[in-house]
């Protein structure tokens, strides 16, 4: 059916990456390049009384020492512009930059930072989002600490609870988590290059968001700023605002010194400064009839936004939409809040407000099942969304296949859920006990009613028949370049080797918004398809005229053009050559705008996403009852992706997402004590290693979506959002104890409470 799409073709960037040729931000060198470094705050909440930079400025080899006073516009932010490029008068969190230097070497830069004298006055900080609600605002110009309040309303929860035979009230909470991209943030800013005011190269997730920030801080036009993405060593939502801030600083230093300036964070600098996954405190009340049907849910979620708004206005919006889980619930009332605190700020991380609520709603579903004497499978099968169901937000699901039953059945079969669940339900003895657990989700694809959702791509057929392609969305390691080239190659009927993908560059690529929300294949892929179709149409028309045929008589396949009945007409290369010399337009811009959606913020309802993906993950664990150690033995992960453009790369997303979910579930926590971050490197921030791997069974389910390119939807984020919940349910079965707090590390599993600091304040 397909020649290139739906096939496990090799990554187009693999050769560069296995030979060490791929250049990342820190690998770049420019003539005359200086090294930029930032002095960071000593306290998480303080007034800056005085900064003396004279001694630092006088050091040989130091070319610039700058403070907030030297920044043309000091506040940036994608949604609310409250993030300081350098702290001016106030320190809001421990990662705030106070001053920055550019010097001939890293050693000289370090000496210059030591020579800067800062006089602080500590101010009592706010470190708990619940307390932040009533505390005076940490940002003096705001009325209070509330960043956002989203609501969702369906039916009448009072009636729903009155009709319930069983009501449960439960509280769950989750932790700060580090993205843990292996490459620390790195940029090089080059002044006055190729017509731009400044060009910034580096590990940038979202070139347009970073461009907007740099232009704003320099008070320059958008078209004066060139952001070029290099190979990026992982991002997972993480190299957005923090890299924008770094790009602004490097750009200011570069323009000040008129020299290229490289800035590379150490791991410690990265962890202290970069935004984290939001910790959530969640209250769930659920009502059900005695036969196990959900009648009402009332949910309150409080997110710690930390010092700056960043993505907090939007992250709890996805949570408010999805907080019930993928169930039919007639009466729902959900409120999500985000508050400022003096903790490290929080923002986008793979999942974006879903892993937290899934941990809660899927733990809750198992607790309810136990209360009602049902199995985890039974309670879910009674309540899941199906074709034609109406979601909590009031959206009728009738445009695509609602495949929850299918993903559940496939995962259960692969891991032998029912048999193992029965076996582990019997009394267990001995030092180790086993359990099996499950979690399911639905996830709105792409941005949803959060923002404009459009993307572009440019495709150009050359006169030798080779093709180049670029897009406004950017490779983050996930394989976007390869997927986009597959779509172009499929549509044009040419081999992958003829298609070249160019780096994202803000002065060439069409502004396509951000590479986020698992939207690239779906929205960006449609833009590529559109560009390829335009180019193909132009070539078709030209060739059809030559042969006295009509365009619809032509088939593009295997680098040739054929008639419908299989007669070879002309090679793609020759057709391209002839068309070029005849003046046919062979370079085309493709554009795609997502189907219309809407959200009524006041009423708390609407059609927030144009399509959804469905998934089920199941985990089998062994718990050492003497130490609390959890070993995840097996995991099955069934994901409906619409269509797998590249099944092997898709499996890579599943393996990686499952392991990130495992880390979230049992290992990872950024420990924060009154705003100070305690684990600043990978020696005590523990991420999963090869020794933590379970056997992972990836299951790809394909129900093509009418709005996806070749039916494809999303995969990046869904793979990560379920693991912690499934593992938590498995641990509860093994130990007989329900722990409602992540991560389920040794002490929580053994003692039921944490020994380490966390959550900002203890």
């Amino acid at each position: 059916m397909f020649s290139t799409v739906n096939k496990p073709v090799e990554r187009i960037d693999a050769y560069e990456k296995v030979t060490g040729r791929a250049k990342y931000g820190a690998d770049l060198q420019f003539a005359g390049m200086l090294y930029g470094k930032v002095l960071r705050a000593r306290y998480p909440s303080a007034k800056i009384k005085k900064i003396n930079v004279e001694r630092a400025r006088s050091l040989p080899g130091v070319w610039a020492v700058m403070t907030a006073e030297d920044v043309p516009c000091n506040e940036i932010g994608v949604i609310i512009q409250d993030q300081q490029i350098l702290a001016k008068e106030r320190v809001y969190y421990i990662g705030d930059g106070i001053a920055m230097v550019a010097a001939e070497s890293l050693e000289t830069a370090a000496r210059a930072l030591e020579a800067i004298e800062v006089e602080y006055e500590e101010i009592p900080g706010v470190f708990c989002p619940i307390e932040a609600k009533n505390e005076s605002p940490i940002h003096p110009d705001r009325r209070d600490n509330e960043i956002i309040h989203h609501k969702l309303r369906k039916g009448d929860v009072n009636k729903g609870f009155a009709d319930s035979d069983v009501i449960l009230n439960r509280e769950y909470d989750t932790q700060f988590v580090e993205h843990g991209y292996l490459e620390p943030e790195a940029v090089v800013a080059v002044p006055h290059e190729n017509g731009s005011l400044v060009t910034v190269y580096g590990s940038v997730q979202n070139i347009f968001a970073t461009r907007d920030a740099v232009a704003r801080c320099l008070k320059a036009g958008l078209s004066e700023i060139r952001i070029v993405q290099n190979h990026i060593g992982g991002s997972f939502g993480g190299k957005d605002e923090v890299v924008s801030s770094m790009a602004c600083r490097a750009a200011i230093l570069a323009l000040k010194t008129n020299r290229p300036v490289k800035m590379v964070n150490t791991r410690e600098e990265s962890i202290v400064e970069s935004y984290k996954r939001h910790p959530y405190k969640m209250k769930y009340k659920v009502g059900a009839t005695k036969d196990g049907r959900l009648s009402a849910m009332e949910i309150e979620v409080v997110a710690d936004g930390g010092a700056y708004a960043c993505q907090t206005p939007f992250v709890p919006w996805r949570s408010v939409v999805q907080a019930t889980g993928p169930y039919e619930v007639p009466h729902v009332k959900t409120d999500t809040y985000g508050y400022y605190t003096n903790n490290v700020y929080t923002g986008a991380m793979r999942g974006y407000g879903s892993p937290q609520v899934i941990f809660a709603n899927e733990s809750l579903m198992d607790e309810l099942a136990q209360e009602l004497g049902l199995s985890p499978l039974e309670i879910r099968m009674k309540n899941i969304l199906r074709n034609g169901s109406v979601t909590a937000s009031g959206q009728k699901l009738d445009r695509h296949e609602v495949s929850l039953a299918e993903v559940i059945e496939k995962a259960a079969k692969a891991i032998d859920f029912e048999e193992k669940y029965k076996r582990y339900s019997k009394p267990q003895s001995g030092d180790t006990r086993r359990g099996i657990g499950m979690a399911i989700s639905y996830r709105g694809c792409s941005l949803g009613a959060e923002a404009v959702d459009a993307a572009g791509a440019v495709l150009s057929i050359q006169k030798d028949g080779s093709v180049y392609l670029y897009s406004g969305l950017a490779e983050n390691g996930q394989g976007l370049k390869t997927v986009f080239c597959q779509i172009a190659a499929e549509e044009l009927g040419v081999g992958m080797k003829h298609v070249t993908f160019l780096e994202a560059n803000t002065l060439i690529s069409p502004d396509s918004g951000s590479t986020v929300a698992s939207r690239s294949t779906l929205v960006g892929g449609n833009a590529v398809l559109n560009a390829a179709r335009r180019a193909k149409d132009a070539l078709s028309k030209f060739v059809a005229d030559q042969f006295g045929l009509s365009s619809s008589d032509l088939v593009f396949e295997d680098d040739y053009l054929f008639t419908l009945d299989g007669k070879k007409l002309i090679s793609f290369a020759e057709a391209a050559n002839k068309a070029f010399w005849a003046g046919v337009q062979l370079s085309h811009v493709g554009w795609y705008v997502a189907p219309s959606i809407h959200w009524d913020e006041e009423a708390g309802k609407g059609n927030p996403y144009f399509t959804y993906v469905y998934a089920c993950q199941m985990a089998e664990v062994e718990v050492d009852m003497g130490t609390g150690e959890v070993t995840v033995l097996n995991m099955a992960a069934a994901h409906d992706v619409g269509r797998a453009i590249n099944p092997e790369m898709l499996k890579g997303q599943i393996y990686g997402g499952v392991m990130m979910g495992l880390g979230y579930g049992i290992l990872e926590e950024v420990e924060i004590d009154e705003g100070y971050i305690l684990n600043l490197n990978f020696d005590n921030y523990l991420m999963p290693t090869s020794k933590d791997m379970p056997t992972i069974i990836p299951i790809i389910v394909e129900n093509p979506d009418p709005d996806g390119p070749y039916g494809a939807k999303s995969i990046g984020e869904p793979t990560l959002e379920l693991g912690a919940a499934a593992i938590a349910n498995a641990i509860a079965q093994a130990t007989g104890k329900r722990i409602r707090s992540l991560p389920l590390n040794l002490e929580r599993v053994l003692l039921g409470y944490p020994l380490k600091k966390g959550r900002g304040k203890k």
Partner: protein
Amino acid sequence: MSKIEVNITVNGAKHRLEVGPKERLIDTLRERLHLTGTKEGCGVGECGACTVILDGEAVHSCLILTAQVDGSEVLTVEGLEVDGRLHPLQEAFIQHHAIQCGFCTPGMLMSAKALLDKNPNPTREEIKTAIEGNLCRCTGYEQIIEAIESAANELQAASH
């Protein structure tokens, strides 16, 4: 600060260097020799992105001072490809989709090569142990392990 003369062979090429006592091997490779394939992810020997092979052993080049390695042979990711031919491990990483962002890939390849040089027929568990010190945040390790298994088979077949 006094300089120390160090003679090292990197990817077969001999170098005589004058280094300071605090210069790390990773900086010598990246900054002096422009071999930027070796990556720095943590600087404390936890992530393994800077792994190189030093006299046959996989080591963290961020934890080694160049002055310590006088007379040694170093192999980096740039030295795996010989005469334009990829090493079977590199081929296998490509074929098995063992790469996503690629930042851990050079270190991962070097740990795998050090393993296969000593143990041409490793079990899955031995592979997991060999790359235990190489963090990968993207792939979940599965396809990396499959690639190493496949390269081991390839190398075994070639030697028979």
